[in-house]
C-alpha cells in the first residue's frame, strides 16, 4: 500500500477479486496522484473488505474499483451493502474496466452497476481527465469539500 502526503481528498484504488491485470492500475494511480488526490493504492486482487478497511482507516471519500477480466459483475455486487453495514454509507463508488464479457451495450452495463449502488460506471475508453473532473465535483457535492 502506498500513500503520499498530499492535501487533496483521499481515494482508495484497486483491482477487484482475483483479477491480476496490473498495467491499468499503475496508470490510474499515477494519473489520479498527479491530479492532486491522495491515492491509497491497494494494487491487484483486492477483496471488498480490503477496500472498505482502507477507506475507513484513511477517511477516504471514494473507492475506485477496476475489473478487467470479465467477472466484474460477480465481484462488484454487494460492495455497497457492505459499506453500509460497516458504517461508510455515503462513500462514492466508481467502477471501470472491462466490466462484462463480450460486447454489451454500455447503457445496459451502466444501469446494472448503478442498481448495485455504484455512483459512476466507466468503460476502458473513458477519458480520465473527465473522470477527474467528475470526481472532484461529486466529492464537493456529497461532502462539501
Amino acid at each position, binding site marked *: 500500500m502506498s500513500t503520499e502526503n498530499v492535501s487533496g481528498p483521499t481515494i482508495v484504488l484497486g483491482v477487484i477479486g482475483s483479477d491480476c491485470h496490473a498495467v491499468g492500475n499503475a496508470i490510474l494511480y499515477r494519473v489520479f496522484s498527479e491530479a492532486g488526490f491522495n491515492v491509497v493504492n491497494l494494487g491487484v486482487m483486492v477483496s471488498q*473488505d480490503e477496500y472498505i478497511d482502507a477507506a475507513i482507516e484513511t477517511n477516504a471519500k471514494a473507492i475506485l474499483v477496476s475489473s478487467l*477480466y*470479465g*467477472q466484474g*459483475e*460477480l465481484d462488484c*455486487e*454487494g460492495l455497497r*451493502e*457492505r459499506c*453500509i*453495514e*460497516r*458504517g461508510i*454509507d455515503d462513500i462514492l463508488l466508481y467502477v471501470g474496466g472491462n466490466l462484462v*464479457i463480450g460486447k454489451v451495450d454500455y447503457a445496459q452495463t451502466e444501469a446494472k452497476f448503478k442498481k448495485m449502488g455504484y455512483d459512476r460506471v466507466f468503460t476502458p475508453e473513458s477519458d480520465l481527465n473527465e473522470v477527474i473532473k467528475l470526481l472532484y465535483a461529486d466529492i464537493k457535492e456529497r461532502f462539501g469539500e
Partner: protein
Amino acid sequence: MPHVISIDIGSTYTKGAVFGWQEGDKAFRLAARAVVPTTVNYLPDGYRQVMASLEELCRRSGEPFSETEASFADIPVYFSSSAKGGLNIAALGIVPALTLKAAKLTALSAGGRIDRVYAYKLTRRDVAALEANPPDIILLAGGTEGGNEVYVRHNGKMLSKSSVLAQRSVLVYAGNSVMAEEIEEMFAAKGFEVHIADNIMPEVDRTDTVKAREIIRSIFLDRIVKGRGLDTVVKEIGHNPNPTPYAVLRLVEAIYLKRPEMGEFMLIDMGGATTDVYSCCQPVKSIENVMFRGLPEPEVKRTVEGDLGMRVSALSTFKAAPYLAEIPGMAEFVEKVDRDTSHIGVSETEKSYDLALAGACSGEALRRHAGKLRRVFTAVGEAFVQEGKDLREIRTVIGSGGFLSRLHNFQIPDILKRGNTADNFLLVPERFRYARDKDYIFPLLGNLADNYPLLAVQTALDGLEYSENETVIPGVENIGRSSSRSGASCSCRDV
C-alpha cells in the same frame, strides 16, 4: 421401572405422555398418553386434566412404578408451551441480506416467530404500525463491530420516543457494540425494558447469535409463564417450560448429532396456523465453480412460515400458492375452513382438497427454506452463485403435525417443479424418502431431548414410518456439479 412425563400445551390441544425405561434400554416405552382441549383462559386446568388422565391410565394398566415413584407426583415432568405459535418478534436490521437476515435467523432459531421486518431507517408510519400492534420482542440489529452507528441510533430514537415499549414490547439490542451504551441509556431513561446482546453480525461474513438467542428465550419463558397461570405449574414442578418450537429444534439437533447414520434430513411440522421447517445438513457443498454469497447459513436451521397452514392460515396459503386456484372447488373449500377452522375434511373430495393444501404449505415452506443457485458466465466459463442452503443431498424428509403425521405418502409439491428456470435453480432435495412421525410424538420427545438425549432420539426414530417409494423432484440433480466442471475445462475460449 423409572418414568418421565412430558406435556405440551399447544394452542388447541394439551397433550401428554408417560414414558418408562429400564437400565440398558435404547428407547422409551410409551406407557400412556392423553389429550385434552387446551384451556385457553387458564392453562393449568388443561395441564391438570392431562396429568389426571395419565395417572388414571397408568393405574388401570397396572404400570410398574419403581420404589422412588411412590406417588404419581414423584415422577419428573418436562413441559412445553407454544404460546400461540411462538412469541412475535419484529426484526430490525440495516441491509436486508446482512444484519436483517442475521436478525431473522436469530429470532427463528430461538423459537420465535417473525412478525414484521424492517430494513434501514424506521419511518413514522413503521412506528405507528408497531404501536397499533406491538410485538412481544423488538430485535434491533445493525452495523458490524465498529461499523455503522447511524441507522441504529435513528431506529433507537424512533422506538424510544414511541409507545411500543410502554405497551408490551421488550427491546433486545444485538447490533454494533459501540452503540450499546447509548441505546441502553436511551431506553432506560424512559424506564423501558432493554436487553443488550452481543452483535449478531460482528463481521460481514460471520454471525454470532448465541447470546441474543439466550436472551430471547428467557424473555420467551417469562412471557409464557406469566401468561395464563403457568407460573403455578412452574412452582409445582420446579422448573420452566420450553417454547414448543425450541423443544422440537433440540430434538432435531440431537438426532443429527447422535445419529450420523441418519444422514442429512429435514422435518416439516405443519399445523393449522404455521408451517415450520427444520433442516440438518452441510449448508454449502464444496463444489467447483460454485461461489457462495451472503450470510453463512446454520447447519441446523429452522424457518417458520406464519402465512402457511391448514386452517387458520388456509386463506393466506391459497394466496401464496396461486396454482391452487386452478383446482375446481378449492376456493370454496378454503372459504369453508376459514370460517370454521375446526372443520375436518370427511368426503373423498374434501380429503383431496386438504391434500392439495398440505402440498402447497409444505412445498412453499420448503421453497422459502431452500437456497438458490444462479448460473453466471465468467471469463473462464460457466459458474454458479449460491445463496442460502443447499438441501439437495437430503434423503429423508420427516413429516410431523396433525396432518402430516397421518399422511402415508408425500405428494410432490407442484410448486417446487415450477420454481426452476433456465438459469435459476432451487436447492431442494433431489430425491428423498418421506417418513411420518406416526404417533405425532416429536414435540413431546423434544422436551426430553436435553435430559435423555439418546432415549429421546431412538424413540423418535423408532416412531418413523417410511413411505415405500422415493419422491423425486426433477431438474436440480447435476446443476453446478458435472456440467460446471466441463464448463471450466474449456476456459480459454475468450482470450
